């Protein structure tokens, strides 16, 4: 082996990438050649300096967190249907909480008007949806997405309308539990305020006009029309909410007929 060949192989030799005959050849050459032996020592010193100077960067802890979070979101987004069990779990949890609340509250509520009890539940449902940051199981402004979502989750099909043109965009829908039964909750937004509309089948065909209940700074409108109970709750200014209720009543009637 001559010097030129040896010099070209010194790095591979240093990195342990030569086969045994190649190693032997270069070792033999270095025994006779001071220049190549020196070249090898230089490379070895440099490699040690690079490897031993703490030059390896480590991923910051926040990056780890960020990536784990992003991956989870990605996994959920890849197959939306896969997340249904989690939503069901959330729904089941809220059912359990509501049921528990009912057990605690019910003994004190006996003898009160039915509407009063429902009003409490509706308000609790509204507040819970905001507190738990759980406004919608199906976040969508498209009524053709929201309405079918309830299929198979409820034994009725709630009327779903978007009022974006009137300044009350549909945000989405979710399941809730009111008056001892699963109900549809439709969520609308008015500027920075949220409106929950709870819908479930009425026990009779009797119609009743919109009635307002004020409670803890919230306004609750409720009425029965077309065989459905409607409860609307928000912290929105009352006249604004009343406009919304009027639209809802008109549209729901149109859908029904």
């Amino acid at each position, binding site marked *: 082996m001559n010097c030129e060949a040896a010099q070209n192989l010194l*790095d591979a030799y240093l990195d342990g990438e030569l086969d045994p005959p190649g190693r032997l050849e270069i070792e033999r050459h270095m025994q006779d050649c001071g*220049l190549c032996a020196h070249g090898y020592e230089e490379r070895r010193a440099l490699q040690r300096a690079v*490897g031993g*100077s703490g030059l390896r*960067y480590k991923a*910051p802890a926040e990056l780890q967190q960020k990536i784990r979070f992003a991956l989870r979101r990605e996994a959920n987004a890849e197959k939306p249907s*896969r997340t249904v069990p989690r939503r069901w779990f959330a729904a089941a949890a809220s059912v359990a909480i509501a049921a528990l609340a009912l057990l605690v509250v019910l003994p004190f509520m006996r003898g009160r008007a039915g509407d009063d009890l429902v009003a409490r539940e509706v308000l609790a449902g509204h507040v819970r949806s905001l507190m738990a940051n759980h406004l919608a199981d199906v976040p969508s402004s498209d009524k053709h997405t929201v309405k079918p979502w309830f299929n198979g989750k409820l034994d009725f099909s709630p009327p779903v309308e978007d009022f974006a043109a009137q300044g009350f965009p549909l945000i989405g829908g979710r399941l809730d539990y009111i008056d001892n039964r699963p109900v549809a909750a439709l969520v609308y937004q008015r500027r920075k305020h949220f409106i929950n509309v709870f819908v479930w089948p009425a026990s009779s065909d009797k119609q009743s006009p919109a009635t307002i209940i004020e409670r803890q700074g919230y306004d609750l409108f409720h009425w029965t029309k077309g065989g459905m109970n409607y409860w609307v709750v928000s912290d929105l200014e009352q006249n604004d909410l009343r406009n919304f209720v009027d639209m809802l009543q008109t549209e729901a009637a149109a859908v029904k007929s």
Partner: protein
Amino acid sequence: MGEKDKLTRFEEAILPHMDAAYNIARWLTRNERDAEDMVQESYLRAFKFFDAFTGVNARAWLLTIVRNTCYTWLQQNRGRELMTEFDEKIHSEQNEAWDPAAQAAKEIDGRMLTQAIEALPAEYREAVVLRDLEGLSYKEIAEVAAVPVGTVMSRLARARARLKRLLTERLKEKA
């Protein structure tokens, strides 16, 4: 269920190599923020294409994605840095008396080394980082950089020759 399995499998196989991913991204981009973006983007791409992963060498597989992501970024942001293959003289120069034992230990500090490595063209820089900081074999580096093993060998040789020259110059300036 299946999706959850995929995420779990991915986390177990690929997340442990985040330091390696960050290290190469940090050296290629030469700054923290872009390195973080590169790593995050790479992880999301890796997850997307995880089904194509054969399960053999998770680290090399991830680093290939990180490398490609970084090179795309380099092309868009620092076009000039790439494709700067030059013919570095590999052979030792007899007149340069670089006493490795004394100088490497005493005078060459981390900062000097960092500057010298950062001054290398990207292809040489990544070879040094993957070999001397990550301990990848030539074959693995060839896989990551999508070049033949022979190219890895010559890049490393040239990179080290250039590093030596840069460091010698710095030491002279200091003296």
